[in-house]
């Protein structure tokens, strides 16, 4: 028995060693980036793996030259608008598909699902044209409006609504609740965990949009953090640590958000795998 216990201890130690090694590899780029972001411009080539000289100047320059403050505000506003709107539109349309009877319901739902197959990247050519015609280039509307509704959210929330017992809806009818009342008092509170996941998911997706803002925001004042980084990287091609400081500034808030909302994120990402 002693040998088996010893061999188990060795195996555990081996697993830890492997875990640490993999963690180092995964974190390596992030570490190098952090070290670089705090280095003064003239020291960037020295000790790239160790924070031998530390300054906030690079971060400050990146913040100023990349107009990152403005970009952070833009990104936050757009992501919040998109998140709230996606939750609201998804809940409403999911309710219609789950609880209302009306002619053409099946057909319309199929149409919703079909939009999931259209890659956003294939529609940008025309959407750019539409937004331009509406006069929405360089505006919050232009950045946010195409993402105010999602078939994915509708599908996800509908799945949850369908698991609510039919008796619950009927009990609510007996109690005197109409559709709006049932939605507010029963359906939404019971779907709250899924709505949290959907909100986080929508926020992340909006925050990480890359192609759309680079197409829609021609004026630097309307950059989001992603297109702002692009602008910064092109303007400062010969000051790489400035660019890297910019990426730290952009990445930090989302790291914090994800650490706080880890559970919702896992739920959101796996919803498709479990129920799909």
């Amino acid at each position, binding site marked *: 028995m002693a040998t088996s216990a010893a061999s188990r201890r060795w195996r555990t130690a081996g697993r830890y060693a492997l875990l640490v090694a*993999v963690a180092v590899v995964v974190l390596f780029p992030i570490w190098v980036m952090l070290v670089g972001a705090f280095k003064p411009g003239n020291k960037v080539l020295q000790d790239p793996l160790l924070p031998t000289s530390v300054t906030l100047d690079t971060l400050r320059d990146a913040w100023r030259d990349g107009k990152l403050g403005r970009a952070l505000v833009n990104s936050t506003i757009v992501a919040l608008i998109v998140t709230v709107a996606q939750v609201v539109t998804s809940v409403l349309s999911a309710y219609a598909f789950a609880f209302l009877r009306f002619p053409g319901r099946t057909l319309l739902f199929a149409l919703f699902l079909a939009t999931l197959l259209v890659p956003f990247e294939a529609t940008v050519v025309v959407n750019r044209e539409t937004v331009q015609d509406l006069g929405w280039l360089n505006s919050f509307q232009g950045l946010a409006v195409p993402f105010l509704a999602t078939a994915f959210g509708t599908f996800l929330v509908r799945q949850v609504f369908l698991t609510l017992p039919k008796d619950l809806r009927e009990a609510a009818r007996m109690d005197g609740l109409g559709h709006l009342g049932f939605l507010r008092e029963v359906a939404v509170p019971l779907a709250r965990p899924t709505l949290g996941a959907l909100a986080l998911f929508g926020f992340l997706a909006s925050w990480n949009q890359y192609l759309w803002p680079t197409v829609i925001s021609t004026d630097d004042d309307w950059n989001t953090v992603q297109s702002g980084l692009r602008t910064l990287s092109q303007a400062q091609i010969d000051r790489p640590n400035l660019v890297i400081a910019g990426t730290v500034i952009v990445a930090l808030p989302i790291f914090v958000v994800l650490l706080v909302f880890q559970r919702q994120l896992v739920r959101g990402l796996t919803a498709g795998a479990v129920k799909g």
Partner: protein
Amino acid sequence: MSRRWRDLPFAVAFLAPSLLILSAFVLYPLGRAVWLGHQRCDATGANCRSNGWDQYVDVFRSEEFQQALGVTVRFALLTVPVGLALGIALAVLADKHLRGIGFFRTVFSSTVATSVAVASLMWFFLLNPSVGVLADWIGGVAKNPGLLRDEDTALWAVAVSSIWANLGFTFIVVTAGLQSIPAELYESARVDGAGGWTRFSNVTLPMLGPTLLFAGVVLTSRAFQAYGEFDLLTGGGPNGSTTSLTYLVYGNNSIIKNNVGLQAAVAVLLFVVLILLSALQIRGVERRVHYGN
């Protein structure tokens, strides 16, 4: 008044917002892109006119499209299998009740927080021949002109950045899949005398089927729609060796940059390729995937 019609006003009001947005920004653009794609425009993108539908054929046969399609397919083949395999390996490694395992799980999930721009610039910094640490280590081969500027290595370098960025997603999804496998299955396999590898290949992998299908479909569709990596790391170069289909449509250095008709045509063909691909993937895998119950 029958129930069928009583709900109608609610249905209209509840569906209107979603329907409006999805029609205006998904369905209409798709239809319009199909229409635009058949129009022949001059080099500045002006004077577009309808002249039959053979522009799609021309685009499909063109050298540029074929090359971009090849780049996109190779990019997917480089990133998806490796990404999946690494995701599985990390998830299995961390799927054990050990002290501090939560920390490692957080670390392995962490790249999910990096956007395309962040991940790409990070790797640009690492691979940049003048400052990059990695470029320095890899040494002579890459020093000049650098991995990203070398026609033979550029796509590989972009793929590495993309695999790293997607690792967090794959890890999270596979971990959730692992946790949904009932413990009795492992126990009965153990009772049957199955060793670690046998348990993995006979219990874990088959039970992960639906999860891997999902992750595979998502990763593939991400690979086909990838744009930021190419835009920031290589700008489609050198020599078009990293000009993917998306970069061909939207990239600053693309030769069809100003030609709306051609851009629409390529975008529509990208859509068709993706549809065919997901149909194939789901059909091909579904036959072998084992769904619980």
